[in-house]
């Protein structure tokens, strides 16, 4: 029996963006990363329809993490208090295509470090690696508004991805990202209507929709992944159907969310297998599941999970 041709074709596509600026483009990056461009759902249509292959961004924290489980600390134990060396290790040893500096240490409850610290970390990482950077605030609006504009300035012209802007806190970061030539991450709490609204708000300030990447919030395997999956899928369908306000590439935070799961880190769990394996497996499963829905940039943490996911991507996104 012949296999019927069921592939839909679409009129729209996901925006294609290039992160990072080399010397010729006014930056100091040695490489750039293109994402987006899909003209069909994952596995749908021809190879060309798939657009750019998804990429892995590895997390580097601005300050030594205090609450990471042993399995996650182990690969980084010598570099955890040196963001530059940490980033270098992720790029050179683990093949990170982007580095995401997560400024957790500026949070009032997690160190309350100031802007000069954040700027120093940014400069250190910019110097240590040549890949494009993602600059991600701590999530406390007041502190992010105080620190992230300075971080943005420290990386001016590097075409970083900076975030996040939210429905009730978007003005200062949008303005500074526009001035400094960065791309923006718009964040919504697993709510596609709010996701669309934030993009409109940023656009109203004159920020080009073509320079936005959306973050719909991520749920790990067993912790709401189905909500994240269906929202990503709906955004992809909207983009393919021509909704220009939802045509952005997508970023998800698999590393942080997966390692919050108790299955990833509980030591005393006979019958669950060794704890050193569970975390990477949880992270891998979460990433690979979300890849099917249509995501473009995946933030990850454990080198083994990164290796497996990169291998999966290279098998599926050929050409």
């Amino acid at each position, binding site marked *: 029996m012949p296999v019927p041709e069921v592939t839909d074709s679409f009129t729209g596509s996901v925006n294609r963006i290039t992160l990072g600026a080399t010397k010729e483009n006014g930056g100091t990056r040695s490489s750039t990363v293109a994402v987006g461009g899909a003209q069909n759902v994952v596995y749908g249509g021809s190879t060309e329809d798939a657009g750019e292959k998804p990429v892995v961004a590895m997390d580097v924290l601005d300050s030594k993490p205090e609450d990471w489980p042993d399995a996650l600390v182990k690969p980084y134990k010598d570099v955890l208090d040196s963001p530059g060396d940490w980033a270098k290790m992720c790029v050179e040893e683990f093949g990170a295509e982007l580095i995401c500096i997560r400024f957790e240490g500026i949070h009032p409850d997690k160190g309350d470090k100031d802007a000069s610290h954040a700027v120093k970390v940014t400069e250190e990482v910019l110097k240590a690696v040549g890949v494009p950077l993602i600059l991600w605030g701590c999530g406390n609006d007041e502190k992010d508004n105080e620190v992230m504009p300075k971080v943005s300035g420290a990386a001016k012209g590097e075409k970083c991805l900076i975030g996040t802007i939210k429905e009730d806190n978007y003005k200062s970061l949008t303005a500074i990202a526009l001035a400094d030539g960065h791309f923006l991450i718009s964040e919504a709490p697993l709510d596609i*209507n709010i996701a*669309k*609204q934030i993009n*409109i708000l940023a*656009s109203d300030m004159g920020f080009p929709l073509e320079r936005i990447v959306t973050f719909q919030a991520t749920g790990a395997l067993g912790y709401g992944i189905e909500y994240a999956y269906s929202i990503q899928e709906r955004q992809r369908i909207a983009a393919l159907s*021509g*909704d220009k*306000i939802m045509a952005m590439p997508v970023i998800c935070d698999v590393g942080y969310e997966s390692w919050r799961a108790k299955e990833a880190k509980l030591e005393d769990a006979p019958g669950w297998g060794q704890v050193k394996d569970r975390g990477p497996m949880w992270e891998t499963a979460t990433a690979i599941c979300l890849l099917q829905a249509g995501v473009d940039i995946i933030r990850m943490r454990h080198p083994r999970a990164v290796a497996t996911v990169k291998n999966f991507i290279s098998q599926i996104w050929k050409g």
Partner: protein
Amino acid sequence: MLLIAERINGMFTNVKRAIAEKDKKVIQYLAKKQTEAGAAYLDVNVGTAAADQEGTIQWLVETIQETCSTSLCLDSQKPNVIAAGLKAVNAENGVLLNSTPLNKKSDEEILDKFIEMANQAGPKASIIALTMDKNGVPQDIDTRVAIAAEIVSKAIEKGFDTQRLFIDPIVLPVNVPNAQVQPGNILAAMEQIRYLADPAPHMTIGLSNLSQGATERSLINRVFLAMAMSRGLDSAIADVFDTDLMNVVATTEMLMNKQIYSDSYLKVFASTNK
């Protein structure tokens, strides 16, 4: 919703005068403003005043294309006028041939001619076909559907993609004596026309005709448009400057889950409905 903007039509006084005086500014202004208001196509109709209809449609097309790349909808009952417009049009941008009945007493093959013209114009040329034949405009539901079915099968037979076909079930003024049954008939016909092909053929109407000569024109137009969209109408020749009407289109699309809701959905509709 694919909106075909109706204002570049010689029936309007300012357009009629612009044609007579070869005043490009009026035409180019209307092209720009209608595009900004959310038009996917600009209807181009020379009206009845111009003596040289072929020359006039070419002048209109060239004038619009000097400053605007929006797709055009060449509007004439005369194939020779459409053919003249096609010579000037940049069909790469998309073009609609508006319109042909199934057949005419004077020309049994008119639909074939339109299909031939569209094919010659290239893959981005589409046709508006009226549910009307040599016996005139049908008043009942069944004849409308039967004519639409014949149009669709003719297209399929000719290898013409039904996605390039817009069926127009012909809207008549509601205030004409005994015409009040027609809007209901049209909606019922639409219910069936949408199933004539898979994917469904496009459907379009000349919306403003419905309220011709009536008071409450905008209200009548927009209520009918919402009703028709729920029956599968996915295009209309309409007044895109009517903000209330555009808000109804945006809201209906949102309620039908064709657009993702956001608090500012009305504001972005015109710029994103392409």
